[in-house]
Structure formats: C-alpha cells, structure tokens
C-alpha cells in the first residue's frame, strides 16, 4: 500500500468516525468532549497558521477567544440578535482585534511579540472584569443556544464539526499553496524570505488576522457550548494549552496539531490523576517535546518507525567509465 492510498484511506476512516460519532460515543458527556475538541480546533487551526507555519509565537490568543465569547454572549444573549449573525460578528471582531494587535506587534522580534500578546490577553481580562455593566464582571454571562435544529447536543455537535471542517479546509488550502510556503519561509529564515521577495509583514499580518477570525468564531460557539462564561474561564493557561497542542502536534502540519488537540483534551478526562497536575503537565509535556522532538510527536513516530523498519536506501555508486573518458578527452585533440 503506497502512502497515497493509506493517506486517503485513513482520512476516509477518520471522516466516517467523526460523522457517526454521536452514535458510538457512549453518552452525552463524551459527545460534549468531542464538541469541545471541535471548538478548540477551530481556534487552533487558525493559530496553527500563526505559530506552526509563520513561527510567530503568540501566547495570548485566549484574549481573542474571550472577545469572541463575550461578543456572542452579549449580542445573542443580552441584545437578542440572531445567533448565526452573532457568530459572524464575533469572527469579524476577532479579526479586527487581531489586526489591531498585529499591526504594532508583528514588527517586533520574537520575545517582544510574545510578551505583547501575553499583555493583550491580560488587558482583555482586565477590561472584562472592569466593564461590569456590559460583561457582568465577575458574575459572567449565560451563553445562548442556537435555534433548532442545533439546540440539542447532537445538533450542536454537527454544527461545530461542520464549522471545524470548513476552517480545516481553508487552512489546508492556504498551507498548500503560495501563502503556506511564504509562511514557512518566514518561519525558517525571515531574512532570506525577504530577500526573495516575500512580503514578510503582510504575510504575518494576514495569518494573524485569519487566526483572529477563527478565534472569534471559536469563542462564539465555545460560549454556547459552555452555556455560561465567566472571566475565570479565560486564563493564560488556556493559551498555553492551545500552544502546546500545536507544538506537540508538529509545526508545519495540519493533522499533527489536530491529533495534539484530541489527545490533550481527552487525556485529562480519561486519566484523572493527570487532571490534578493540570498545567504542570502541559508545561512538562511542552518542555519534553521541545527538548527531545521539537518537530512534534509526528516526527517521533517517524523516528521510531525508522528504527523499527529502516528505509532501504539504494546506493548508486558512481564509478567513472575511464575508457569512455579517455576517448572523449582524446577526441578533443
């Protein structure tokens, strides 16, 4: 079986599993987990373009998630706007905030940029707590449900899965084509990229704004899934979690971070001692991955499979045909 067939087959099996999940999932709790994975993946798919492809280490994306969630809760909940329209507005606002954050910070070197995004998430938290009339402050806001048929858990699961698949398709297209290559070149060597003519700043900004839009949309459905949002939900550790999912999955791929998201969301639920360690575990995992396999766990599988079944490299030694060479040289005289 060549790699193309296995790739298609595994994607097909995966698609069937995802589509029929509500029926084999066991109970509503696992359906809830699956929907949560889909919601996180909407944000992480966009963030993947920023962190995994363009190499901009944004550790403050929880701020954009928060903006998306609160926008949705305020519009669809307090003001009674149609939830579908609210999702669009949340995405739009997320993109705008991404633009506002990205314009000044993307020109800065790596650490400065990371700190700027961290500071952004802290500012969002402060504003949410301070604007009590708008956001309910510490009390929080209820997350409104979508209209039929998406108000049941199964319906909602299909809604977020559909959105997640759409976002995945978008990122896959971007990654495959011109912009994807541009992003990777910026990550690996910005000077060379600029020398070849890649519009570095524009590309970074594009990726960042796109990730803002996906974060906004993700925030909107997150609010609906959680049915209630408070400032306690949007802590810095959640940003770390998104980040770790991408790094573990492997930068530069889309399937990798997706698997990373699935594993990291499901793991603490299945293995409850890990849940107590919580963020310590995420930090430890990130450290181990960065030190041992910085390309991600996908690479680790490759290394293991190399050890188990090494590729047979066909050597074609090149021996010069001396007679022919001599004749060719003589022929010139």
């Amino acid at each position: 079986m060549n790699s193309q067939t296995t790739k298609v087959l595994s994607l097909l099996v995966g698609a069937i599993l995802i589509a029929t999940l509500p029926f084999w999932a066991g109970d509503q709790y696992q359906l809830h987990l699956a929907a949560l994975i889909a919601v996180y993946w909407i944000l992480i798919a966009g963030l993947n373009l920023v962190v995994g492809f363009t190499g901009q280490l944004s550790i403050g994306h929880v701020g954009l998630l928060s903006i998306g969630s609160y926008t949705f809760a305020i519009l669809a909940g307090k003001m009674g706007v149609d939830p579908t329209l609210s999702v669009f507005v949340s995405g739009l606002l997320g993109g705008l905030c991404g633009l506002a954050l990205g314009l000044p910070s993307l020109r800065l070197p790596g650490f400065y940029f990371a700190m700027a995004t961290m500071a952004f998430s802290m500012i969002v938290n402060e504003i949410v707590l301070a604007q009590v009339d708008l956001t309910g402050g510490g009390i929080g806001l209820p997350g409104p449900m979508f209209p039929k048929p998406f108000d049941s858990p199964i319906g909602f699961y299909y809604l977020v899965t559909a959105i997640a698949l759409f976002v995945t398709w978008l990122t896959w297209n971007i990654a495959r084509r011109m912009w994807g290559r541009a992003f990777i070149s910026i990550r690996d060597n910005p000077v060379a990229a600029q020398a070849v003519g890649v519009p570095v700043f524009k590309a970074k900004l594009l990726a960042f704004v796109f990730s803002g839009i996906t974060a906004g949309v993700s925030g909107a459905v997150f609010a609906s899934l959680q049915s209630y949002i408070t400032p306690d939900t949007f802590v810095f550790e959640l940003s770390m979690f998104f980040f770790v999912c991408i790094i573990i999955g492997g930068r530069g791929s889309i399937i990798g971070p997706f698997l990373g998201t699935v594993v990291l969301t499901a793991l603490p639920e299945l293995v409850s001692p890990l849940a107590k360690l919580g963020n310590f575990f995420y930090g430890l995992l990130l450290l181990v991955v960065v030190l041992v396999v910085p390309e991600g766990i996908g690479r680790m599988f490759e290394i293991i499979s190399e050890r188990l079944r090494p590729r047979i490299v066909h050597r074609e030694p090149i021996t010069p045909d001396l007679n022919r060479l001599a004749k060719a040289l003589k022929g010139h005289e």
Partner: protein
Amino acid sequence: MLTVIVTGLAIGMLYASIALVYNVMFSTSKVLSVTTGHLSMVGGVFGAYIISVLQMHWLWGLLGAVLAGATFGWLTDVLAIRRVLARSDEHLWLLSTLALATMVQQGVGLWWGTEPKPFPRLITQEFGAGLMDQKFWLPIGMAIVMTIGLEFFYRKTMYGKVFIAMSEDAFAARARGVSTDKIRLLSYVLSGALGGLAGFAAGQLTFAFFALGHTLTLLGFIALAVGGLGSNIGALIGGAALGLLNSFASYYFGGEYQQTIAVGLLMVVLLIKPEGLLGAKNVRPV
C-alpha cells in the same frame, strides 16, 4: 500623594531589578527567558517559607532565597537553554523557558498554596511607620545596590569583562579561548541569584504569591524595553517610570486598569523608539 510616589518607586525598583536580571541573562546568551519573573517569585516564596514556617533568622531566609534563585537559574540553563541553543532554530528557547516557567509556577502553587501569603518583617519596625516602612526602601535600596554591584562586576572583575566580551561577539570570545558554555551557565546562576534577591527584598510589597511569575516577567520586560535592552541605568529608569505610572493610575482611576496602562506605556515606547530610551540600535549585517 507622597505615599503614591514612594509606593510607585518601590514597586518600580522591583521591576527594574528584574530588568537587570534580563540584562545579565541576555548579555551572554542573547536569550530573553520567560523564567525571569519566576526567579523573583521563587526568591520571595522561599524566603517567606524559611523565615515564617521554619522560623529561622532572616539571614538564613536571604541565603535560602539567593540559593533557590541561583538553582533555578542553573536549571534554566541546563534544561531550557543549553540543548536548545545548539540547534539553529531561532525561537525554540522561548518555548522551553515558557514550559519551564509554567512548570515551576504550578509546582510552587501546588506546594505553597494559591493564596498570597504575607512576607515576614525582616527588621523589627512598627507597622505604622508610613513612608519609612521597610517594605518601601528595601526594594529601592536593593535595586541600587544591584546596579552598583553589577557596574563594579563588569568594570573591575575578570568575569565581568568576559561577560561583556561575550555580549559583543560570542564567536570572537570563543576564538580567544573563553569557554562560552561555562560562562553562560555562570551568568544564569548569577542572574538567578539576583532575581531571588530582588524577590526577597520586595517580598513585603508583593507578598509570597505563586502567580507572580508571569506578571513580573511581563512587567520586568516592559521596564527593560522602555529603558533599553542592555543598559542597566535604562533598567532603573524604565522600572521607575513603570512603577510610578502604575501607582498614579491606580490611585486616580482605581486598580482596574493597571495592566492596560502598563502595556499602553510599552506600546507607545515601542512604536516611537523600539530599542528603548537608552538601548543600542540593533544593526545586523546580512
């Protein structure tokens, strides 16, 4: 009014000390570690633990804080920096130091508890001492002592000169026989000790609180960015500016927008003069 200024200066000097720590780390490794704020946190927590819980004299607490910071600095180099710098990937150290910082923060939180616990008095003094209270002049004094100490270190001692050599051109230093790995390790241990010391001195202001790490990393960084990377005097100026701004804003507008204002300052400075007030312009030949 005077209280506002003194409080601002005191907390600002803590930020300045952290900026000094950044400078020491950066000089030899060109790395800005996310663990910097956590060094101070560790210093404060261990100091409080030794004095309050183990009931020992505050000199032991000081020693403990410095040792804890130095150990943590050593760990940062060994775990997060050494292997990572060997690879050519530019920003991996950001991830590794972030990971280590999170681990230490959560670890301390699990052990020490999640509530800010009061830091004990170091010198017996009445609590109503007002402006002359030690919680104000301890961090200010410590920052000044650290700056003078570092200047002396850089100018008069051999190791200091080696640090400067490495910060100017690491390859040339190595070509001249300087063991860059060992010097880098030394600089991390030193910066860890300084960080622990700063956290210990400012403990009465910040309380022994496990979640201080990320906040101090960020605010110390703002002090550094405002003052200019690489300049110790700049660190003091940046820290003072940030502390005073925080204090005044919190007095007039209430404590709700503290982070917003601090970051506002950062953004303004970075937009106008990205290398900070006293920093050197980073020109790189391509």
